[in-house]
């Protein structure tokens, strides 16, 4: 039976940022849709819903020699189990713990064939506590990485912070992840269509989703911090050389590269080549055709740690047709 893939939204955010409030809102709102919810703390949700599933974040390393290929086996199992139910649902929401690395959750949707056949990762939504974000950044890498992975960021509890504080938090968020949409919220109140069904991992929507994508440039933060960089090229890309370079880059730097996306003008190809990845895992496809006379510019975006933009640009330049 051909079944539509169920969209999966991942909700991350530091302890106390407002994830549970957001989940409760999604579940109690009258939207006529049915969501299965995978949570870590059973009973925290105020909504009585028999599609709430308790998960222990069971991360395992794939037995394939790739050190950052960690996935959530519990999600694979639960998604298979949910498909045995008679009741079908419109979407799955996965709440991670406050100290979780979003990497394994995202990678699960790149790795497992059955999960890929039945579901699609829709977007990673990160809730940020406007008042405590800077303090949380100092406590470890989690708060920073949750922002780095995000497609949508709810800057929450804005009522508890001054406009000046909010600007500073927003600037810091932008320096980490320039490509996520940031929405200011109080008590996690947000229009649901701003966070659900975004298609952020849909290769067909890479261009439309990122309004900032076409503006090149990079910030000058310290390299060891997590940040976003983009590089471009105006000459066509040689596919073999690109494959080699990207393969080696991800092999070496995969653990440091959280998200990557790109649109490539491949030498001799009438269509755009689009890809996106999480750490070392990647999806790619042919996108829309280039128009006649359109400037064929390749653009690559990386969000990660220790990113040397000059080095990345040199790597891309070496893949270009002379």
């Amino acid at each position, binding site marked *: 039976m051909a079944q539509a893939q169920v969209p999966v939204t991942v909700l991350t955010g530091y302890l106390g940022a407002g994830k549970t409030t957001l989940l409760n809102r999604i579940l109690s709102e009258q939207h006529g849709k049915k969501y299965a919810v995978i949570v870590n703390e059973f009973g925290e949700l105020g909504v009585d819903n028999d599609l709430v599933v308790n998960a222990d974040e069971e991360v395992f390393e794939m037995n394939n020699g790739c050190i950052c290929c960690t996935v959530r086996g519990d999600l694979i199992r639960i998604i298979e189990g949910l498909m045995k139910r*008679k009741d079908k649902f419109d979407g799955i929401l996965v709440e991670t713990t406050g100290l979780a690395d979003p990497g394994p959750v995202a990678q699960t949707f790149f790795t497992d064939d059955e999960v890929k056949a039945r579901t699609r990762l829709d977007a990673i939504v990160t809730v940020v506590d406007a008042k405590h974000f800077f303090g949380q950044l100092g406590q470890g890498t989690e708060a920073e990485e949750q922002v780095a992975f995000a497609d949508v960021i709810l800057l929450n509890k804005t009522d508890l912070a001054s406009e000046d504080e909010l600007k500073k938090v927003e600037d810091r968020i932008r320096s980490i992840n320039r490509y996520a949409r940031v929405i200011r919220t109080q008590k996690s109140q947000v229009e649901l269509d701003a966070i659900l069904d975004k298609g952020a991992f849909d290769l067909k929507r890479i261009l439309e989703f990122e309004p900032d994508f076409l503006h090149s440039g990079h910030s000058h933060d310290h390299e060891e911090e997590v940040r976003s960089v983009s590089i471009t090229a105006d000459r066509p890309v040689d596919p073999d050389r690109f494959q080699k370079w990207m393969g080696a880059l991800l092999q070496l730097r995969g653990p440091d590269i959280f998200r990557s996306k790109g649109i490539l003008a491949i030498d001799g190809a009438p269509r755009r080549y689009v890809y996106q990845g999480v750490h070392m895992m990647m999806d790619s496809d042919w996108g829309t055709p280039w128009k006649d006379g359109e400037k064929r510019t390749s653009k690559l975006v990386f969000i990660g740690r220790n990113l040397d933009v000059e080095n990345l640009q040199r790597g891309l330049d070496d893949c270009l047709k002379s």
Partner: protein
Amino acid sequence: MKLDLANPAWLQTLPPGRSLGVDAPAAACAFSTDGSRVAFGLGDGRVRILPADIAAPETPAAEPLHGGAVLALVADPAGDGFVSGGDDGRLLRVAADGTASELVNQKGRWVEHLAAHRSGAIAASASKTAFVVKDGEVREFGPHPSTVAGIDFSKDGSRIACAHYGGVTVWSIGNVVLPPRRFAWRGSHVALKWSTDGKFIATGTQENDIHVWRMAQATDMRMQGYPAKVKSLSWTADARFLFTSAQPVFTAWPFAGKGPEGKPPLQFGDEGAGLMSVVAAHPSAEFVAGGYDSGELQLGDLKTRRSVVLRMSDGAAITCLAWSPDGWKLAVGTDAGALQVLDLKR
């Protein structure tokens, strides 16, 4: 009388049987220990019990027993009913008349895997814990490093094996408490079957491999080359072959003599449109049934390598298969809720 796949009747007609459609996926099926009934565990929480005799009148459907979906079902080894596990966290003993009594309640967890032993013992898993129910007593084993993804009894019923991340744990379930034995192999193990002679434990892994431990020497072996995860494993009654799913034809590893190391698997049968999703070796003879994710059902004869088609593809994956204890009937369930009981006497 014997099952003979050379009989031309197999080519002319599909075997007679009882078919019904239900409005929920079938997760598991089993014949009762006395062979008089067959039950299907369904995605709407129902346990649908039918007479095994395909000519007997159909028993009416009962109310759901589980709050969500039934995830596992086996014959009750201590009676003529069944035992079911559901995503409502309950393990139920279901009598032949469909009335249920609760054995375990683990709200918020799923009772996903079950095994039964002829001594009357039942093993169930819920999250990281295994439960053994015997003579009215429930004992817990665990916690394991991750959620248990497969459980089975040893041949003599003195031990259970649980699959999880990083390998398999074997517990003695007798009165003498022994430390658990751990058989390690990296990665996530997603299915488990103890060989019918008790000498081997086989698992399917997340990386589309099969892993087998030889109990006596604690040595292990890995079989690779599957295009998908092997979720269904079935040992022949004499333990000479291990049948595996996730191939387009019957695929069996030879364990007689020196074992399968360095040997190719035995493969035979017609290619299905998809891959086998469930395999079930015959309870006594050298036959095997294989259901496909594309809906076909095939019966194979290990000795003659003949095979016959029992069911055509309808696009809905076969999700469960069970042989009657006497080996003359086969129960089949699909994820579209097609339930069948086939009579193979021809």
